[in-house]
């Protein structure tokens, strides 16, 4: 039983884990090969739901059986993770990192030279297995993903009993934790959220007090968006009906950051409904921006791998909008890509004073 500060969610997750154990124990006692089912997470079982505008897991399940030698080790690891997460984390009200869990579980199996887990890369996917199987979030298992991303804006929240005002955090802003499930929004005053891929651009806009002038929430993912950033953007946008604009480099990697924030990722297709924000819009940098603002001299030649990735994206069902097809075709044709910093060629404040206000004013977005 959960001991302290057990939330209803904790109780639910705890009993789901117990249930899994009971089913396995029952099979063992009956002399049946113990096994459990979970949705297949390979590309073949990931579908794009047009209506919800989300990546979703299909209905294909795989069975993991202890008596199958190919599954036995993973089966053992799944049971170890399930028992440890329930007993040490959920029921104790403790949250920790995947790395901690790896060290907690790693030990030599008696009488062998084999460890229960050899590398963290072995224990991480087991957590995703349990997430999909039991339909719970990693954060609900009290396991943190990477902490990355910052935010500023006219927002006041309550986090672990502390009240935090995002407008009064100086130059650093609020560092977005992995688990934002229990954050309570006291007040949200913003016309839109601007989520920026690059930290440098975030620093520029923050220093220029862009968010004060524009009355927006400024967020940076510092590269591919971590779960905390995605969930926070999702909650703000959905719970407080604030539009979400994404601002990345003008290349296939930037587009994919957008794709993951909007539609969900293939790795975490089972939680797209909570991590994906389907009404997000792509602000830039677009190929049209390059032409329009005369940035052509500041583009970079696209490498083969950039073009290859672009062609892949062009085939994804969720990139079939004519605007996106045009955008991708332009890039493939011109063989050019552009970084956010290209805008600085027009002056350091060009981005704050000209580019963003114009784009947002004209609602010049890609869907």
């Amino acid at each position: 039983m959960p001991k302290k500060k057990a939330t209803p969610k904790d109780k639910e997750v705890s009993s789901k884990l117990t249930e899994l154990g009971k089913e396995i124990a029952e099979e063992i006692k009956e002399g049946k090969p113990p096994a459990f089912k979970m949705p297949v997470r390979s590309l073949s079982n990931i579908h794009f739901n047009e209506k919800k505008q989300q990546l979703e897991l299909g209905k294909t399940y795989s069975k993991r059986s202890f008596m199958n030698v190919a599954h036995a080790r993973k089966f053992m690891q799944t049971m170890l993770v399930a028992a440890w997460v329930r007993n040490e984390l959920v029921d104790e009200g403790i949250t920790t990192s995947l790395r901690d869990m790896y060290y907690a579980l790693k030990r030599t199996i008696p009488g062998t030279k084999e460890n229960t887990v050899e590398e963290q890369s072995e224990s991480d996917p087991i957590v995703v297995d349990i997430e999909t199987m039991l339909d719970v979030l990693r954060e609900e298992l009290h396991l943190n993903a990477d902490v990355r991303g910052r935010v500023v804006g006219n927002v006041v929240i309550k986090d672990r009993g502390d009240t935090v005002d995002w407008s009064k955090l100086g130059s650093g802003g609020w560092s977005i934790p992995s688990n934002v499930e229990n954050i309570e929004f006291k007040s949200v005053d913003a016309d839109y959220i601007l989520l920026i891929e690059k930290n440098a651009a975030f620093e520029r806009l923050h220093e220029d007090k862009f968010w004060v002038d524009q009355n927006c929430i400024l967020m940076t993912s510092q590269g591919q968006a971590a779960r905390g950033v995605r969930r926070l953007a999702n909650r703000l946008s959905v719970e407080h009906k604030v539009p979400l604009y994404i601002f990345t480099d003008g290349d296939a990697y930037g587009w994919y950051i957008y794709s993951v924030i909007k539609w969900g990722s293939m790795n975490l297709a089972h939680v797209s409904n909570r991590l994906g924000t389907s009404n997000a819009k792509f602000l830039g940098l677009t190929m049209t921006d390059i032409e329009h603002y005369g940035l052509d001299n500041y583009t970079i030649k696209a490498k083969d791998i950039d073009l290859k990735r672009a062609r892949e994206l062009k085939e994804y069902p969720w990139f079939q909008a004519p605007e996106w097809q045009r955008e991708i075709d332009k890039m493939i044709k011109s063989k050019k890509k552009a970084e956010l910093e290209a805008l600085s060629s027009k002056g350091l404040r060009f981005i704050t004073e000209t580019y963003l206000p114009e784009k947002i004013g004209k609602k010049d977005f890609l869907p």
Partner: protein
Amino acid sequence: MTKADTIFKEFREHSVAEFFKKNRQMLGYSGKIRSLTTIVHEYVTNGLDACEEAGILPDIYVRIEQLGNEHYRVTVQDNGPGIPKTHVGKVFAQMLAGTKFHRFIQQRGQQGIGASGCTMYSQITTGKPTKIVTSPQKGKIYECEVMFDVKRNRPLISGEVEYPGDMQGTKIIAEFKDVTFNWSDYGPAEYLRRTAVANPHAKITFVAPDKQRFVYERAVHVLPKKPKPSKPHPKGITVDDLLDYAHHAKARTIKSFLTQTFDRMSSAKADEIEKLTSIDFKRKPDSVTWRDAEEIVDAIKKTKFLAPNTSNLYPMGEKQIEKAILNVLEPEFHAVRTRSPSVYRGGVPFIVEVGIAYGGKAGKGNGDSAKTEVMRFANRAPLLFDAGGDVITKVVNEIDWKRYGMRKLDDVPATIIVNVTSTYIPYTSAGKQAIADIDEIHKEVALALMEVGRSVGSYIRREARKGEKQAKRKTLLKYVPEVAGAVAKLTGDSKKELEVKLLDMINRKYAAGQMGDGPEEERDG
């Protein structure tokens, strides 16, 4: 004395030594290692033959001592009937005096060079005599030293002593130079190991120059049956042979000569042949001309005969090969096969026997580095040399051993044994170390090897399957405590109970006796 006399005398004086020197390659004295092996072979063969003829289970002792560079002393002792004093000279110092020459009989030895060749080789390399100690009579021992009297071409016996004492058999002590001992496949040690395989009724003890002692215990306590001389089969005869036989025949007519001389030649068959020729079979056999002989051989070719009588062939037999393999090679698995008698060139009967030993001491080298070895025998005598030209080697190389679970034949701990038994082994050369590639023999060797190959193949596959099952079982077993512990933590069940149930489940699926692979017992300890 005429000039011719002088020349003739000179010629005779040197003849024996010259003959030996000129023909030593042919007689097995080529190369320093091979020469020593030949010496051991001649003495051991004589010992085995003497014991078998006297109905005694052989007990052969061989010792090789190094006296200097390329200088060795060889001692061979048997437990045979001993050699009568009057015969010692003939046995040890008279060339071409053997009793085995040109008989249509299955035999082990070489031509009539044998022990005399050794005496000669000792004499020309060391100048010393060969010492013989023998007991032809119970309680009496006779000792002497033998040399060739080159001038008179006859034995020279000295140092004769007779005294009472307890001894059975004959002991030969001789020194040799220009020979080398080593542990290769061509050396005396390997020769004796293979002799032990082919002669499980003999006990063979070998003391090597480094004092290492090898004892091949007797595995079979019955002597092999004595081969009997037999008549040749007509289909195997050549014109020259026929003419030769006919001119020495005692029969009154050609017809009776044919029926008396040849196997399967009935009176009716002789009539049949007569009709196919223009020859009157009532003529005397010594009147047969080359043309007549040609006509008769042609007619024989057109006539059908019963297959040759094979009762005069004495193969080792599957039981004996099996015992020999188990005794010498102690394999994990073995398979043996004695084929039915067959005939080559239409008239020479032969039997092919094979055995495969796998694992244990089988193969060359030990453990993981063990390699496949092929032991060739002709009438039980090991063939160590000229492997490349031998039909057995050819067949072994032709067989697709992968089909029998031996991926790369070279790297398999296996000994392949092939023994060809025949009244006339078709050697490729006078060295008698390789059997000619004759279609019928080739086919028989191939069929026999494929038969035993199948047995070994299914054994190897069975073991591999067992190994896989064992590996799977072990994989699952090691996770049992972890799984049971974790599940128990989740549910509060007894870890012990879950463990027992899981172990039970695994044992039911993978454990001994549940393989469905026949009666073979699980070896796992």
